[in-house]
């Protein structure tokens, strides 16, 4: 049996994986993987995913030159399109941070869209009913959105902690409940009387996030960036983050030495819901200026994707959010100019997650072919 041990590796001995006349694959578990190697392999996974995406696009009738034009040239050729990417990246970063916070304590928050909906509903309530003086209206909407999002995750969080009910299913089911409630509001009491479309009345100027002064970037982007730094501090510097990493690495040990696991999980889940609620506010008050019936679509998976690609690191999430923003903007122009349905963006994201997740196999394992042994 050929055994090529890495220097410094003291793993279990490699075992035969497939038996056959010609030889077999041997798998070794890598015990220590350098950061460089991890990065290279994951980037390779990303490139393979993008290549697979290109193949799908070509099969859908978009030429290779057009793909290059839409995804690279036209994005970086004008400050207008760069700002379009950044406008899109702001809410993406916010939901990505929501996923980062939840995944750090192994809470699978698949209810980001429902929490966005309730965040936006709470903020819109403040706007419609003119709560508070005009000067503090926006901060009030921000806080209301955070509370709305938080309330929408309380039930799944408590059900998981008290009864052990799988949060993946409970958070996801609540998305459908939130969506139907949104439709009830938008087709009923909150419908804009001046419009045939099901959306709320337009926010007043002071209820919308102001422009920062470059192209059409609003305060949504600074808010998202500040949030990213704050979350990074919380998870990587503060005691809270240290506890979270402890629980992630070894829950039994953490419990034994008295880490408050239940409080940690609960507060992380609530924080994740609050951030998602802010994400709803950022879309409604920062981009659309009102609550529409589809403002949240696709953000759950994008948030998960961003947290996954960023390895749950809030600062790396900024970069990934911009990358996903490029996908969104390019997807929109493909829709306009090539009649490629908007679902293509979703497909691209799924392909990237799959190829990057698959590439992790080669981070953790060494595969080699052994000849002749039967």
């Amino acid at each position, binding site marked *: 049996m050929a055994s090529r041990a890495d220097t410094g590796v003291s793993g279990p001995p490699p075992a035969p994986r497939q038996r056959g006349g010609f030889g077999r694959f041997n798998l070794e578990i890598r015990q220590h993987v350098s950061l460089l190697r991890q990065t290279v392999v994951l980037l390779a996974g990303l490139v393979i995913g993008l290549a697979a995406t290109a193949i799908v696009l070509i099969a*859908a009738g978009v030429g290779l030159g057009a793909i290059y034009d839409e995804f690279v040239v036209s994005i970086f050729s004008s400050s207008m399109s760069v700002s379009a990417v950044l406008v899109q990246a702001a809410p993406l970063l916010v939901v990505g941070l929501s996923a980062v916070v939840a995944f750090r304590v192994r809470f699978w928050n698949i209810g980001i869209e429902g929490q966005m909906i309730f965040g936006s509903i709470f903020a819109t309530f403040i706007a419609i009913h003119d709560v508070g003086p005009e000067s503090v209206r926006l901060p009030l909407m921000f806080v209301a959105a955070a509370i709305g999002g938080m309330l929408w995750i309380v039930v799944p969080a408590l059900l998981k902690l008290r009864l052990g009910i799988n949060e993946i299913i409970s958070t996801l089911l609540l998305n459908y409940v939130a969506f139907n409630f949104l439709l009830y509001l938008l087709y009923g009491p909150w419908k804009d009387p001046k419009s045939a479309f099901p959306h709320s009345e337009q926010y007043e100027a002071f209820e919308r996030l102001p422009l920062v002064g470059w192209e059409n970037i609003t305060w949504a982007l600074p808010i998202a960036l500040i949030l990213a730094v704050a979350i990074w501090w919380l998870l990587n510097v503060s005691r809270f983050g240290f506890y979270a990493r402890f629980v992630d690495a070894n829950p039994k040990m953490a419990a034994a030495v008295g880490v408050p696991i239940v409080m940690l999980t609960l507060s992380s889940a609530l924080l994740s819901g609050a951030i998602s609620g802010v994400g709803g506010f950022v879309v409604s008050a920062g981009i659309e200026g009102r609550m529409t019936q589809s403002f949240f679509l696709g953000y759950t998976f994008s948030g998960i994707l961003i947290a996954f690609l960023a390895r749950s690191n809030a600062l790396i999430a900024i970069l990934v959010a911009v990358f996903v923003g490029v996908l969104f903007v390019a997807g929109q122009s493909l829709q306009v100019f090539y009649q490629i349905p908007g*679902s293509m963006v979703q497909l691209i994201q799924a392909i990237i997650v*799959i190829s990057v997740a698959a590439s992790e196999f080669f981070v953790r394992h060494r595969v080699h072919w052994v000849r002749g042994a039967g």
Partner: protein
Amino acid sequence: MDFLVNWISNVPGFAVPFALAALGLILTEKSGVLSLGAEGFMLMGAMAGVGAVILTAQPELALLVAALAAAMVSMIFAVLVVILRVNQVIAGLAMVFLCQGLTSLIATLEGWTSRAIIGLAKLPIPGLADLPVVGRIVFQQDIVVYLTLPIFFAVQWFLTRTETGLKLRAVGENPEAADSAGINVSLYRTGAIAAGAALVGLAGGYLSVAVAKIWVDGMAGGRGWIAIALVIFARWHPWRALFGAVLFGAIEALIPRVAAVGIQVPQYFMLMTPYVATLLVMIWAAMRGNVRLDEPGALGRPHVREERR
């Protein structure tokens, strides 16, 4: 009385997608693979079914195509979780979104979206269909409703009475022990994923070809997730899953009839009921005792022979 018969005679049609999907999930999860991709496989089956009806005009054939399409796309999932040992939650979620994007893309490009099709015809049993009450409820259904019970018997028999089924369950309970006994864990899990996805795809195809008779994006509407919850509620037991499916079929069949008899509830609140009911059912199941005691021992745990300790 007429309301009651009308309602009950519609229950099987609404229950069948839940029942078949839950059964497929049980089959997959008995091998220790957590299958969160059900919603995606269902969509794939639904889209492929409509496409096949449009191309061949044969609804029965289309149902087979639906099952086959879902089984094919589930092989991506199998490669990810069985060979590459990707986290099964990530892989399952990615499958849902992959299928959502892919089905919407294919259907839009082919022009299948929102196109009415000839659906699966009812198959009244001669002689029995004219019986009062019972005839309408039991003997005026379509072929899939008639076949659902035999399919349940077959899967239950397979799991409990055949050697292959026993080995499948062994793989799900303790893959290390099964491996030592010479069972090919990867092969059994791959087979269980394909067979389970075929049933989920059949459920999706039934949804589009027999119930809705049309394809629209995302038409599974969370039924795949409800089926996952049903499996937990049923504690991985086929007959209890069938009971749960009938319960949810009854709820869904009731929704359009409440407004018809003049009870004023805003329709969006009615549309919430299946999801709220699912949550309640999960709470009820959890209150009755730890669900984990009944789940396959190795559920969600990849088998890596080289990591045996």
